[in-house]
C-alpha cells in the first residue's frame, strides 16, 4: 500500500514535470524543425518515451537536458523513417507565417523570420542557450561538440542574426 502511494506520488510529480517543461520543449522542437505540426508530433513521441523511461531520470534538476536529448533523437528518427523533401527557406517562412506573425510587434516577426534563415548548426546552439538556458558545457555535451566549437557557433549565430535583422554591425568584432 505504501509502495503504491509512493508510486502514485512519483507519477504525479513526473506528470507535473512534463507539464511544466512542455511549453519550452514544444518551442525547442519548433525551432529545431521549423514546422509546428512536426514539432507537436516530436514532442508527443518524446513524452511517451519519457513516460516509459521515467525511472532512468534520477535527478529532476537534470530533466531538461534529459528531455532535450530525447527530442533530438526523436527528431533524428523522423529523418531515418522518411526521406524529407528539400524545402526553400522562404517557403518554410511562408508556410509557418501564421505562427511567425502572431507577434504583437513587427520586430519580433522579423526576428523569427531571420531565425528561420539561420543555418541549423548555428540556430540549434543559440536556441539551447537563449531559450533553454543551457551553459556552453551543457550545449557541448548535448551536441557532441568541443567547448571551443560551441563558442564559435554562438558567436557566428549572433553575428549572422544581427546582419539578417538589419542591425548596425559596424562595431561588431571580427572572428
Amino acid at each position: 500500500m505504501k509502495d503504491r502511494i509512493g508510486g502514485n506520488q512519483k507519477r504525479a510529480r513526473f506528470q507535473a514535470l512534463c507539464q511544466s517543461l512542455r511549453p519550452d520543449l514544444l518551442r525547442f522542437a519548433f525551432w529545431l524543425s521549423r514546422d509546428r505540426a512536426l514539432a507537436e508530433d516530436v514532442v508527443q513521441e518524446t513524452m511517451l518515451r519519457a513516460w516509459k523511461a521515467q525511472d532512468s531520470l534520477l535527478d529532476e534538476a537534470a530533466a531538461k537536458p534529459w528531455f532535450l536529448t530525447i527530442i533530438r533523437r526523436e527528431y533524428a528518427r523522423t529523418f531515418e523513417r522518411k526521406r524529407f523533401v528539400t524545402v526553400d527557406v522562404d517557403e518554410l517562412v511562408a508556410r509557418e507565417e501564421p505562427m511567425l506573425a502572431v507577434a504583437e510587434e513587427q520586430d519580433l516577426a522579423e526576428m523569427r523570420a531571420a531565425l528561420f534563415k539561420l543555418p541549423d548548426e548555428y540556430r540549434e546552439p543559440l536556441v539551447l542557450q537563449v531559450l533553454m538556458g543551457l551553459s556552453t558545457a551543457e550545449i557541448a555535451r548535448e551536441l557532441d561538440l568541443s567547448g571551443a566549437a560551441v563558442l564559435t557557433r554562438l558567436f557566428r549565430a549572433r553575428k549572422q542574426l544581427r546582419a539578417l535583422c538589419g542591425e548596425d554591425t559596424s562595431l561588431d568584432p571580427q572572428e
Partner: protein
Amino acid sequence: MIDCTHYRRTLMVDPHDPDPALGEHRATCRDCNLYAQRLLRFESRLERALRVPVPAQPGADALPSDRVVPLRRRLSRAAAGSAPYRKGWLAMAASVLLALVVAGGLWLSAPGPSLAADVVTHMAGEPQAWKRTDVPVPTPELLDVLRNSRLRLGSSAGVVSYAASCEFRGHRVPHLVVQTDSGPVTVMVLVHERVPKTVQFDEQGYRGVIVPVAGHGSLAVLTRGPSTDAKTVEHIATRVLDSIDWTG
C-alpha cells in the same frame, strides 16, 4: 585586463556572461557600454522571439478532442503535398495512448501535489534563471511581465535579472529572479493561490517560503543550494513584499 575586442567577442557569445572582469571593462569604456546596451536590447528581442506561442494548457493538445482538428488539417496539408512529413494514424494512436496515460495519472495522483512541490517542479524548467549577474532585465520587459498581475516592483527589491510570464496551475504568473547578497533568489507572484499561513519548504536542493498576501494570493520565494538558511529566505521574502506596489 581585457580589451574592447575581447569584451565584445565575449558578449557576442553570451551577453549575460557574469564574469566580473566584463563588468569592470564596461564601467570604464563608454563605447563598450553603448555597445552592450544595444546588444542586450537585441538579446531581449531574441529571447521574446524564441518564445513562440504554445497551447495555453500544457498537454491540452494531447487530448483526443483537441487533436481531431489539427490532425485533419495536417492530413489535408500532407495530401496537398505542402508538408514534408505527417504520420496520421500513428499520431492518433499515440494521442489516445497519451490521453489514457494522462487520465490514469490524474486518477492515481489524488490528492494532488502541494503548492510548494509544484513551485519546486517549475524551477526545474527554468535553469537559465539562476545565473548570478548584475545585468538587469530591460524595464519594458519587466513591466510587461508584472502588468497582468497588477503590481509594480520598487528598486529596494534588488536587481531583477530575469522576468518571465510563466504558465503555472492554469494561470500566467510572474517569475522573477532578484539578485541579492545571498545570490539569485526566485520570486513567483501567485495571485491565484491562497495559503492560510506561511509555508517553509526544503526540497530537491531548493529552500523556500510561500507567504500569504492579503487580497493578492501568495508569494513564493526560493533559493538554490544550502548556503541560505530559512530565516534569511523569510527576510528576503519580507523585503520583496515590502517593495511591491499593488496597482489593482
